[in-house]
């Protein structure tokens, strides 16, 4: 009987110890949310965020977690598929912020859902890292002020005039020596949606700033047969056709353009050299591509290759925008550093201030990442050209962003 009592006592003590251990572990858990389109029409962009977040969280946890004050926190990820649907995005944000209580959210990349999501993350003081350009159009001195509705939101892709400036410069620098005559006439073909309108407005100004005469041609976002539009563009006799911005649409339109020889040179936005090679795409003329910050499939670089080996090794799909995953990977470490410097996890204002002060040398990016006072990041763009009639012979250049917006571009 005594033995039985002792057994029960020991079992209870064990249970108590286990419960205490669990409570301690829960205390040291840092909850981070990811809202990404893992299904639906924006899946190419969404997959990169989720895959990079898993990889970064695993690396941080394997290295012992984040030391904040006298505690060490392990990251617990809560990934939600927004199904490229605004109602599901809002529901996911509500759940992550109010039910789970995450400290930060990565995403969403999808259209202007990020703005609607910021209406939930802002009042709850949850940091939001979104690459979506529509968010960039709303970030300004007033909205990011301490009492502004975007104080806790960060745009994780550079200001569009910067990216457009470095991209346009890189494209022209690479193509000019390969063409018989200096290119002077560009046609920008862009999907007519929120992101397309925003991106093309800056890119056209950047090209004009570099001396190009530019015609802007818009297509409905769901277009699959580009031949009528491309035939019209061919009639404009362009030197370069620039395909913006949706990688999936570009991959549909580009082979059709090459089929009817629309232009003597092309630029494909949203298409990594890796996907160009993988799909065995070829063209009889030089084709350029750009990536932020580094190209997957570009010239070999050990740190980038190592990253992509891990990235694809973790099961990430080889989509047209895989290079963007690098950014989200780096931002995890940047956030972790800001959190560690803040000394506590429940002070989002301190984390915001630290992020704004920080110049972070990314794990893979050769240029330090910094956020400006409007919570927008700055970094260089890599532009590559593939030799005609090959799928894998790339020459690349890294272009720094211009110091100021070109004439006629209000910035943003």
């Amino acid at each position, binding site marked *: 009987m005594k033995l039985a009592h002792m057994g029960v006592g020991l079992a209870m003590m064990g249970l108590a110890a286990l419960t205490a251990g669990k409570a301690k572990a829960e205390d040291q858990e840092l909850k981070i949310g990811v809202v990404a389109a893992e*299904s639906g029409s924006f899946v190419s962009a969404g997959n990169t965020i989720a895959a990079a977040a898993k990889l970064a969280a695993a690396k941080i946890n394997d290295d012992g977690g984040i030391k904040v004050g006298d505690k060490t926190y392990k990251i617990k990820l809560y990934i939600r598929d927004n199904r490229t649907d605004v*109602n599901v995005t*809002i*529901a996911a944000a509500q*759940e992550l912020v109010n039910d789970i209580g995450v400290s930060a959210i990565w995403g969403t990349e999808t*259209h202007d859902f990020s703005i*609607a999501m910021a*209406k939930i993350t802002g009042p709850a003081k949850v940091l939001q890292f979104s690459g979506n350009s529509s968010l960039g159009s*709303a970030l300004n001195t007033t909205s990011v002020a301490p009492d502004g509705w975007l104080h806790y939101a960060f745009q994780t892709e550079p200001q569009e005039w910067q990216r457009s400036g470095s991209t346009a410069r890189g494209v022209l620098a690479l193509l000019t020596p390969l063409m018989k005559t200096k290119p002077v006439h560009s046609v920008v073909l862009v999907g007519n949606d929120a992101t397309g*309108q925003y991106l093309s407005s800056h890119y056209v100004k950047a090209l004009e700033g570099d001396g190009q005469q530019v015609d802007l041609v818009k297509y409905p976002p769901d277009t699959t047969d580009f031949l009528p539009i491309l035939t019209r563009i061919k009639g404009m006799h362009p030197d370069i056709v620039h395909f913006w911005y949706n990688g999936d649409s570009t991959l549909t339109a580009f082979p059709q353009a090459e089929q009817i020889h629309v232009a003597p040179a092309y630029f494909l936005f949203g298409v990594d050299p890796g996907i160009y090679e993988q799909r065995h795409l070829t063209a009889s003329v030089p084709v350029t591509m750009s990536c932020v910050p580094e190209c997957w499939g570009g010239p070999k670089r050990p740190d980038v290759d190592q990253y992509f080996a891990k990235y694809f090794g973790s099961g990430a799909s080889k989509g047209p925008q895989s290079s963007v995953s690098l950014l989200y990977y780096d931002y995890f470490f940047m956030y972790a550093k800001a959190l560690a410097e803040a000394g506590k996890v429940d002070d989002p204002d301190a984390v915001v201030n630290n992020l704004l002060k920080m110049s972070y040398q990314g794990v893979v990016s050769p240029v330090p990442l910094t956020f400006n006072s409007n919570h927008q990041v700055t970094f260089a763009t890599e532009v590559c050209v593939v030799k005609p009639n090959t799928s894998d012979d790339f020459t690349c250049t890294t272009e720094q962003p211009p110091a100021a917006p070109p004439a006629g571009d209000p910035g943003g």
Partner: protein
Amino acid sequence: MTNHNMQSPTQPVTARVSLPEAKPRYMRGIKEPTREEWCLGILILAGLIAFPFFDPGYRFLSLAVSTIFTAIALYGLSLQFGQAGIMSVGHAGIMGVGGYTAAILANQLGLGFWESLPLAMLLSALAAAVVGLPSLRVGGQHYIIITFCFCALLVIALTNGGTFTGAATGLDVGPIPGVFGIRFAKLDNMYFLCLAALTISIAVTFAIVHSPYGRTLWSIRENEPLARAVGINTNLHKIGVFAISGAFAGLGGILQTYYLRHISPELYGAFPSLYLALMIMLGGARPLYGPLIGSIIVNFLPELGGLDPIDSRIAYGVGLLLVILLLPGGVSGGLLSLYRRGTKTRHRLEKGRGLS
């Protein structure tokens, strides 16, 4: 000599003829809700009121809000399609008119939700009436194509509307101003506001269906030339039902705008409109709870079941085929007839047992 005159004098004529005089004139020919239907209504309403108290979490509460404002717009479509028999695949566009009216009024004139609400509903009603004008000349699939084009045109206009419409990026609005200290930025309160609007929508739909006007619409649906022949101004009533339907869509649209607090043209394109048409067909256009059930099926169930959007679309396609073939009254109509059949069988069995 007619057949009537040849009837045997031993058979009383009244035995074979119904007695419409037993009902008030305005109710003739329209079935009154049964006790079971009343009970069902009260049960559904009680369930919806109780939903937040079961701690569903913010995710499902948020989805419930989306489901409800969609259902409100669907009640308009149910009157137009279910009662007057005119299908439209441009209903999301009319929602957009309501949403954009509110957003533009907020951005240009600083008007809040409560001030914009009647104007948004009115403009949506006007827009729906204008879109309905071609239905006086064309019908069926031809009119459906016109409504589809309306949606596409609206999106083009909004996308290229510059700063006035916010172009493709869209417009932002603030939260709904509080009333009696109730803050609608709180999700529970927003849910109850939408639920109140839904209850009013259901009540108005019920009142219209059971009014002489509902009966007129019913006659237009069943046989428009005959309705015209007996002196009904079918054109006027058709435009009238479009306007009423538009007001419902405007209410749904403004609630959506103030729930998301950001709107963009993509919300009101042809594809969202097709989804609304799908919801009304799945749920059932004529039964009172059809629109609500349709909205639940499309907005709520895929999330509950973790269905991928592609799988969902396949399921909707298969579901729509099954509904058309097996349940012409939609899922709600099917459930209702199943219940009635069950009740009838039960009564028959009870009667049989009583007799034995």
